[in-house]
């Protein structure tokens, strides 16, 4: 489960991105990507390619680990044994996805310890949606259906990228997430076709989650040389707006089908262009939340710090003699 990666487009010009790179190696690298070949950890790569991938994969890994928290809240109070089993399996999947992604990121040269330090000190980001609470069981249903739906769109897109270890991790992740989507849909349908109270619960959860869902794919990409370069390097595979459109096109009809109301009076599809129009999400709120001022940021990081702190003595006690860290091979 994942939001988009916030690719840094901080106004640098393309010349400065690759200014000190060997032009021959750069040309070979770009030709390899253009030919559809994957880049492997031991291959030469531009520094900016490495930097952006580390940033992206690391954010993705953190999102999986932190994303387990809002949903995990409902494991102890899941309605019924089957749903409890399914939710436990889903949350365990997400944590496993975090492991796969951390390993993929380590192949680029950043240790897992450094990534976790950057997470708990707030230096690295994770998907913004996980700074919101799952207030009722219906929230966990909406997360499992619609947030995972968004994540799958993003991950399928990125799995066609150029970096081998990331693509392989995403292939495995996408295969596992198809159950999450079905499970989430099943839960939402159950509530939406249930008693008036259940319908009210799911409608209220949708009202709470719609703004974060619209934020999920990130603000419109600025057209820049930088974005263009990242697209050519197949680091970024689609624009944030394109992925948001794809999500709306696939899921709005399914939500309406259940008689639920999406809290955006401007939301509609232009049948001639096939594009959806909607109320522009409040990006100031998005910025505030991502910078630490959301309803759950402090709790998420505090829980993560506690887990690292309380688990340390166990990890130390069982670490084999002559332990030696080497980055995963692929």
């Amino acid at each position, binding site marked *: 489960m994942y939001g988009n990666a916030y690719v840094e487009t901080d106004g640098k010009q393309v010349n400065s991105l690759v200014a000190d790179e060997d032009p021959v190696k750069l040309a070979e690298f770009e030709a390899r990507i253009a030919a559809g070949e994957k880049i*492997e950890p*031991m*291959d030469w790569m531009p520094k900016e390619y490495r930097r952006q991938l580390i940033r992206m994969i690391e954010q993705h890994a953190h999102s999986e680990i932190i994303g387990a*928290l809002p949903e*995990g*809240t409902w494991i*102890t109070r899941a309605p019924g044994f089957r749903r409890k089993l399914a939710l436990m399996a889903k949350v*365990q*999947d997400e944590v*496993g996805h975090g*492991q*796969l992604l951390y*390993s993929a990121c*380590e192949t680029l040269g950043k*240790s*897992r*310890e*450094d990534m*976790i*330090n950057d997470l*708990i*000190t707030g230096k690295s980001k994770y998907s913004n949606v996980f700074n919101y*609470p*799952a*207030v009722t069981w219906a929230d966990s249903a909406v997360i499992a259906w619609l947030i995972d739906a968004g994540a799958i769109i993003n991950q399928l897109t990125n799995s066609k990228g150029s970096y081998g270890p990331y693509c*392989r*991790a995403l292939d*495995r992740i996408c*295969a*596992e997430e198809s159950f999450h989507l079905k499970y989430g849909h099943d839960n939402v349908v159950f509530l939406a076709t249930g008693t008036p109270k259940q319908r009210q619960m799911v409608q209220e959860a949708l009202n709470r989650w719609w703004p974060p869902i619209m934020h999920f794919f990130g603000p419109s990409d600025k057209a820049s040389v930088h974005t263009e370069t990242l697209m050519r390097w197949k680091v970024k595979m689609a624009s944030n707006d394109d992925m948001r459109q794809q999500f709306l096109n696939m899921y709005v009809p399914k939500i309406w089908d259940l008689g639920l109301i999406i809290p955006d009076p401007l939301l509609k599809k232009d049948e001639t262009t096939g594009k959806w129009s909607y109320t522009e999400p409040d990006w100031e709120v998005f910025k505030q939340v991502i910078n630490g001022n959301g309803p759950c940021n*402090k*709790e998420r990081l*505090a*829980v*993560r*710090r*506690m*887990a*690292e*702190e309380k688990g*340390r003595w166990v*990890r130390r006690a*069982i*670490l*084999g003699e002559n*332990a*030696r*860290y*080497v*980055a*995963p*091979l*692929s």
Partner: protein
Amino acid sequence: MSIQSLDPRVTRAHIEENTQEGMQEPLDQLQTYEVFQQKKRGTHHQHVGSVHAPTAELAIVFAKEQYARRGVCVNLWVVKTSDIFITEYEDEDIFSTTPDKYHRDPESYKVMDRIKAYKEKQLQQS
């Protein structure tokens, strides 16, 4: 101030909001093992990824959770990443002559023409 959460487990844990706890030191995330999976008896084990683990025994436990969660698997191997020797992609030309070695290609041994010619010659002589 300790965290008050919608999740009763978090509230009960009395976690402080602002601490420096949890900072990582080297090997806090253990060491790495590469994982090889056999999906079916009779097939080769294949590399599927890696795990972080303190010992080989626990690496097997984690590998099962990580790589044998779905589908079928009959056997797993793990080996410390640091014990693996690898070739460099830069040296991949060491493999480039492999397809040129026709003397190892069964198709490069063509004897029928020679046998035919020999038989014809025998016929002419008799």
